């Protein structure tokens, strides 16, 4: 058992999976000698060689699209998009090729691939090193979508994603890459896609979050506890499929919910979950579901920290639902 940061856990997991299954290959910009700009692929080139660790030209369409072809042909590619913001030049390959291949071929072909990408803000990255584009993936039928927030989950979910027979978009909040260390077991465990984690049990309200904003969510939970309020905290971890059971179980119990994530609010994933809660738990709700999302601006540079849901903003929302 090692104590690892999230990015270390990811690098180890990639190595383990490549060791386990020779069909697993890694491709992307700077994944070779550089080991990835965040070092998520550090050491892989030396260990597995240039046939399985491929530095690609600077084209996200080529990366994602090639991964589709590799996967259809029998490999298990893990593609890295250097920053989630740069997925858009390759978005058609995800939406048109990866997401629809199984369906359009009547199940004849499949694209078992993972597209990893550092996402989210809080690192003074401005417009193009801060975005959280998960809603675009969640709205694209045929993709599974995972957003991790701990080293332990990063390992277990990445393994699950690599072994999944469908294309999985795997978002890694870059702000959390080195934010904390955690004990990560050496053994070959999986965290199933589609299951939320209860990060704190509680009875007065539910706070649902994922990814980049989890530290603030947890801090808000602690502050509430100090104020005598018992918050149940869920980390969604998977957005497609999302864990409706865990969510409804908790919200049915507490009757109050705050949803938190840093992606823009309009037509985001939180809207989906809030709307579903409103539809399913109408009678059990003691207050309206309140969302604390990113602002509907391009991600700013100077106000980097203010863009993200702050603890204050989460607490204000909690107050709102508690005092409703």
């Amino acid at each position: 058992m090692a104590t690892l940061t999230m990015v270390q856990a990811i690098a180890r997991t990639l190595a383990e999976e490549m060791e386990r299954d020779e069909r697993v290959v890694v491709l992307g910009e700077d994944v070779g000698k550089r080991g990835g700009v965040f070092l998520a692929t550090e050491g892989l080139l030396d260990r597995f060689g240039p046939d399985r660790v491929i530095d690609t030209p600077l084209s996200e369409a080529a990366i994602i699209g090639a991964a589709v072809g590799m996967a259809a042909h029998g490999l298990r590619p893990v593609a890295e998009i250097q920053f989630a913001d740069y997925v858009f030049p390759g978005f058609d390959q995800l939406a048109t090729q990866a997401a629809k291949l199984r369906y359009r071929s009547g199940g004849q072909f499949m694209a078992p691939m993972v597209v990893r990408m550092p996402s989210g803000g809080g690192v003074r990255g401005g417009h193009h090193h801060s975005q959280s584009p998960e809603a675009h993936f969640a709205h694209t039928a045929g993709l599974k979508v995972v957003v991790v927030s701990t080293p332990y989950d990063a390992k277990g979910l990445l393994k699950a994603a690599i072994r999944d027979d469908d294309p999985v978009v795997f978002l890694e909040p870059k702000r959390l890459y080195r934010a904390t260390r955690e004990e990560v077991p050496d053994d070959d465990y999986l965290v199933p896609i589609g299951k939320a984690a209860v990060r704190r049990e509680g009875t007065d309200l539910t706070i649902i979050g994922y990814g980049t904003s989890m530290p603030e969510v947890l801090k808000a939970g602690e502050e509430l506890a100090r104020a005598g309020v018992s918050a149940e905290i869920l980390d969604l971890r998977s957005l497609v499929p999302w864990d409706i059971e865990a969510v409804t179980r908790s919200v049915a119990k507490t009757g109050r919910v705050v949803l938190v994530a840093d992606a823009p609010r309009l037509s985001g994933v939180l809207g989906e979950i809030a709307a579903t809660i409103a539809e399913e738990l109408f009678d059990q709700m003691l207050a309206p579901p309140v969302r604390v999302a990113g602002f509907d601006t391009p991600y700013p540079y100077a106000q980097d920290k203010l863009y993200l849901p702050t603890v204050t903003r989460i607490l204000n929302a909690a107050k709102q639902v508690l005092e409703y």
Partner: protein
Amino acid sequence: MVHETLPVMGTEWFQPFTEQPIALLSEEGEWIGDFPLDLDEALLRQLYRDMLAVRLMDERFTVLLRTGKVSFTAPMAGHEAAQVGVAHALRRGHDWVFPYYRDYGLALALGVPLVEIFGQMIATRADPNKGRQMPCHPSSRPLNIFAAASTVASHIPPATGAALSMKIQGTGQVAVCTFGDGATSEGDWYAAINFAAVQRVPAVFVCENNRYAISVPYSCQTATPTIAEKAHAFGIPGYHVDGMDVLASYYVAREAIERARAGHGPSLVELVVYRYGPHSSADDDTRYRPREEVELWRRRDPLARYQRFLARRGLWSEEWEQQLREEIAREQAEAIEAAERAGEVPAEWMFDDVYAEPLWHLERQRALLRAELQ
């Protein structure tokens, strides 16, 4: 699965980047190649049979359209020599093919069962793709024909990826990817071939250049005199070929494919063709194409030229033609019947194959529809 053994080439016969398109047959049907024709009679005749079958299938499609049985067609008349030539240049069922929506002639010549072709066109249970796509979207797992998507050029990056996988796994396969002239303007086309060239993957990129992208003429598409010379951007050879000449299409494709198989990397093959029909059944090409132009190209009909070639060699006769036409008509009529007999695609199939296993939200939606339909 069909495995053809192709003659092994000793030399490379063709020059890239020629100004004039490479042709091996004169318009009169004479062999004008400067190397010996090494194909046996059976194959020479099969090429003709396939071209004729494609032409007749194209006509069938139009009939099916008129009778309301299919909703859409993408005419391929004029592309027969190119598609049939390429189909025979690769190892069927071994190599992979990445076709586009005008390639049912390619699919036919690759051996896709007619009942599957018509099943796909009519969207019945005979379609191995379960009626998921519009007509004219070939796909066959057993024959390694990657399911076509409508989005122009979107299949080029996957072709590069499959070829990269072939290289990594050392399978001795080649990925052959076809597309139109319009496709060459998409960024994905360029990005993918660039990657293929860097990795020297076993791929051949084949452009069926009919000089129109729907109504957009070649002159609005790109400023290069040929598509072939775009290969300079990748550092790979580009061949400018007369795609109305089935033997030129076959031989250049074969050389490019075997080069790729031998580890010499990808190439770009431009087959200059003409589409005799409108872009699709939804198009009216009189709006943008002068009739004289169409007539001019009709006089260069790839079937007629090749027929003259065969006739010169005593491999073609009126009788044989008659016999072929009857056989083909029968096969196609039977296939259509069988495709229709297979019956409608069930409503609930809509929810299958989105993922490998069903996800809860889709199962709920399936239940909703089921309730509605009851």
